[in-house]
């Protein structure tokens, strides 16, 4: 399989592309091979050459009016064509919902393996890519590797850091690829409210669970969030069971990694914990001293969030003024 060479990255999201270039650079250097990015869009020449500053040696650019918006079959045909022709050793695809299904479909066309949602990557002694991913509902981390090439892995947002842009030399190669007709039609796109989008980037998150008695009481968390310049979140039952909110923090919702995560009235089921595991510091407030959230918390308070939260808000307001 030595004909397979090079590390490639692709995402329809620009930031995620840069993050994967950061990690991709490290892997390519280790394997002493080149790092390339596939970049598709319309009128994106300038953005394409910027990728070199972020670590790419080569950028395969497909510039086409049909690519102005993400279109699964179009992107799939491009990636299929390029990977079949150039045979990269490793292909990292951004793990958005669209990116994940793109990776799965590409791997199927190529009859190859695919490892989704790798939050960590390494190279083993046989120069194979090893991806680490959360599995069994957050109960375990699996290390998985490939028996086929290209090794296709999908990479979640914010798993890796982008490099500082530098003046580097590299090459933008413009290609013309035959684009497949779409099988589906996007009728409407409604952006989500900004607050829910930002939670994955928040440095401080105050989150509530079943311990919250009324939807309106989330205001208690918001008070504290204001002082800490943070965001407010919630666990899945408040969204799925009580229908108070549309989103949640957890394995099946937003995976977060703030500096500080304060869990209020959250019992700490494994799926929730899997979504907050990468937080630098976790504080738990819960009335049940046996709640599993205390096992994964740095600081735990056995108490009622309705008493502790206002007091904590007051104390922090005083100290941080």
């Amino acid at each position: 399989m030595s004909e397979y060479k090079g590390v490639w990255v692709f995402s329809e999201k620009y930031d995620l592309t840069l993050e994967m270039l950061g990690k991709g650079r490290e892997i390519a250097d280790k394997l002493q091979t080149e790092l390339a990015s596939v970049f598709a869009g319309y009128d994106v020449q300038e953005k394409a050459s910027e990728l070199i500053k972020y670590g790419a040696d080569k950028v395969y650019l497909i510039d086409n009016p049909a690519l102005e918006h993400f279109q699964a079959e179009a992107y799939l045909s491009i990636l299929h064509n390029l990977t079949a022709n150039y045979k990269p050793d490793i292909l990292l695809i951004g793990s958005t919902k669209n990116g994940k299904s793109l990776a799965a479909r590409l791997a199927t066309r190529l009859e190859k393996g695919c490892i989704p949602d790798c939050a960590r990557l390494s190279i083993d002694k046989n120069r194979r890519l090893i991806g680490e991913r959360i599995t069994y509902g957050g109960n375990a981390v699996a290390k998985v590797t490939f028996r086929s090439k290209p090794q296709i892995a999908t990479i979640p947002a914010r798993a890796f850091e982008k490099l500082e842009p530098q003046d580097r030399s590299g090459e933008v190669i413009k290609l013309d690829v035959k684009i497949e007709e779409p099988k589906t039609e996007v009728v409407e796109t409604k952006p989500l409210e900004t607050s829910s989008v930002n939670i994955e980037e928040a440095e401080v998150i105050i989150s509530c669970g079943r311990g919250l008695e009324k939807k309106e009481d989330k205001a208690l968390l918001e008070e504290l969030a204001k002082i800490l310049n943070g965001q407010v979140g919630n666990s899945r039952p408040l969204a799925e069971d009580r229908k108070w909110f549309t989103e949640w923090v957890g394995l099946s919702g937003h995976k977060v990694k703030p500096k500080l995560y304060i869990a209020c009235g959250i019992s700490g089921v494994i799926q929730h914990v899997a979504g907050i595991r990468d937080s630098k510091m976790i504080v738990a407030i819960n009335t049940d001293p046996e709640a599993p959230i205390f096992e994964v918390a740095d600081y735990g308070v056995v108490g009622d969030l309705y008493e502790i939260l206002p007091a904590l808000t007051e104390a922090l307001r005083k100290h941080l003024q």
Partner: protein
Amino acid sequence: MKRIIVCLKQALDVSQLKVDPATRQLITVSAPKKISDFDKNALEEALRVREKIGEAEVYTITVSSEDAKATLREALAIGADKAYLVNDRSFQDIDTIGTAYILAEATKKIGEFDLVLCGEASLDSFSGLVGPRLAELLNLPLITSVRKLTVEGDTVVAERTLEDAYETVKAKMPALITVTREINQPRIPSLMMIMKASKKEIVTWTAADLNIQQEKIGAKIEVVEVLAPKTERKKIRITGENSAEIAEKLAKALIQEGVVGR
């Protein structure tokens, strides 16, 4: 009459998994199995589509071992008309590529269909690959992460949950849809439905029945290690006479840790 095929996975009930604290190995042998939650939503959605359009056949398929019959029986009780179990000794070492290929061959053998519904991902491995792979193998339009589904004539309209938007997508049927858990609340079968289900048919197919080519189902990935994550947390309990005292201690600790303020 329209026909809807629902792909089910018999997954480990991850909420009942235990970890050996000494080795961090998961103890999977004693963990019960059940229909993967997302797939139950897919089945429920198939039944709702049937109720809305008046008439449709709902078939379920699973690629699993013989013990999945209990799972399929549950699916029949919930409301599926017929269940297919594809089971073969040669399926021991398969990953998503093999599963999708077997499901594709089973679907082709069933013949005509209008919709294939899958869960967005499975409860245990959570990879979300099988649905898209199956769509590719069957050359179907694919709509993933669907939270709302409507069938209008020969068209399906679906609302997807993306990271930063809701997206409404249309496709001509037959199409493959993967659903999220927010799409519906699955029903619980009544005793009557459970009794009726015992009369429904479970068809068992082997690799030979589907002419499975062994080279198509070989695993392309390999699990090196599965361990419970290490938790390196401080686990400090903050106590005090009253809320104010506790809050004061906690506030000071957070400031000292450098996680609040500048």
